[in-house]
């Protein structure tokens, strides 16, 4: 999984890039999140409803939005149905 880590680190310097990461644990305003082998502590004040197990978009040390698993599946399904 090493390349994963490399890519994530390189990409997160992009100004508007946000990467999906999974919440491991929440402590107050902060959460421990992971993507591959990359683990970070991020601020989750913008997402008061977030809970462990959720995927969130991480930008500049903050979770900016939850990733909706249902909608993600739906998007892939619709793309598969394009013909």
């Amino acid at each position, binding site marked *: 999984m090493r390349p994963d880590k490399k890519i994530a680190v390189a990409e*997160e*310097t*992009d*100004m*508007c*890039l*946000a*990467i*999906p990461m999974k919440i491991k644990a929440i402590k107050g305003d902060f959460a421990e999140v992971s*993507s591959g082998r990359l683990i970070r502590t991020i*601020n989750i*004040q*913008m*997402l*008061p409803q977030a809970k462990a197990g959720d*995927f969130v*978009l991480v*930008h*500049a*040390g*903050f979770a*900016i*939005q*939850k*990733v*909706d*698993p249902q*909608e*993600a*599946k*739906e*998007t*892939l399904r*619709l*793309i*598969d149905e*394009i*013909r």
Partner: protein
Amino acid sequence: MRYVDEFRNKELSMKILARINEISPARRVNIMEVCGTHTQSFFRFGLDKLLASNIKLIAGPGCPVCVSSSGYIDCAVKLAADEEIIIVTFGDMLQVPGSKSTLEKERAKNANVTVVYSALDSLKIAQKNPGKKVVFLAVGFETTAPTVALSIISAKKEKIKNLFFFSSLKLIPPAMGYLLKDKRLAIDAFLCPGHVSAIIGTRPYQFIAKKYGIACCVAGFEPLDILEGIYMLLQQLAQAKARVANQYLRAVTKSGNKEAQKFIRRVFKTADADWRGLGRIPKSGLKLKDNFSQFDAEKQFRFKLRNPRTQEPANKCKCGDVLKGLINPKGCPLFAKICKPDNPIGPCMVSREGACNAYYKYR
């Protein structure tokens, strides 16, 4: 699901591409991708080589580093020269040229310039250096604005006295509105930025579809996202009915992240802002509200930005036209000859999200 690899599926990509090429009109179609991250992804995944040649993606002004005015950089450079000041910034800002210098050059001359990943890091730096004044260069769009707002709120809560924010935060929809007023601009559709929209939602783009009749689609940044976004735009063009479509449903809703918007409103007010290459755009920037003025670098250091129009570098750099989508980077006389990533003349070559940088790297 990890929400990355699934959206890089080659088979599905080829499927959408075939469909795109089927429904695309014979004429040239100009799609402006507003966000620099779209520009990067587009080339990185080789989508430019796969799309029909009459579908042109034009890189817009959506790279916050690229549109920082040289007046802003000059002020930062001036602050960096003060031994009492530590400048804290995102890495991309180091090479952005001001009228005389860059932060990187100042750093080589011993100025105190520190690169961070998050605005929150500036609080720790201020606490560790009580004898210094710490200035955070707040650059970014709506995606970054709430992260800065929350950092300012934290600084107030922790009663930090030696931290100041120099805001060049900017708003995307007013800039799009400004572009649409330029009659030379021939845009058929906008691919709207996914992560700005994660915060603001799809609603703020409505005026573009309604007033200007131009198709909009918010899209994510993986290859499937971008391709589906283009497909959805072509569908709108085929039906000749402009609306704001949303491809990035897993992260973007109609009204966005209201909590984040609340933090932005608590700390910032809208103000006119200077965009490099575009000039001054009314109500397109964010400045600190009065009840946070103790953290406002502009109030603390009382410098005035000079008019950016009169002080653009006097060379042949065409970043302004590139940002408006009037020419592509190859249309600039300096591109790849003098202006390269290791010697950037204009801001579009500096940032990884800049159109010229992407063209240079991938073409």
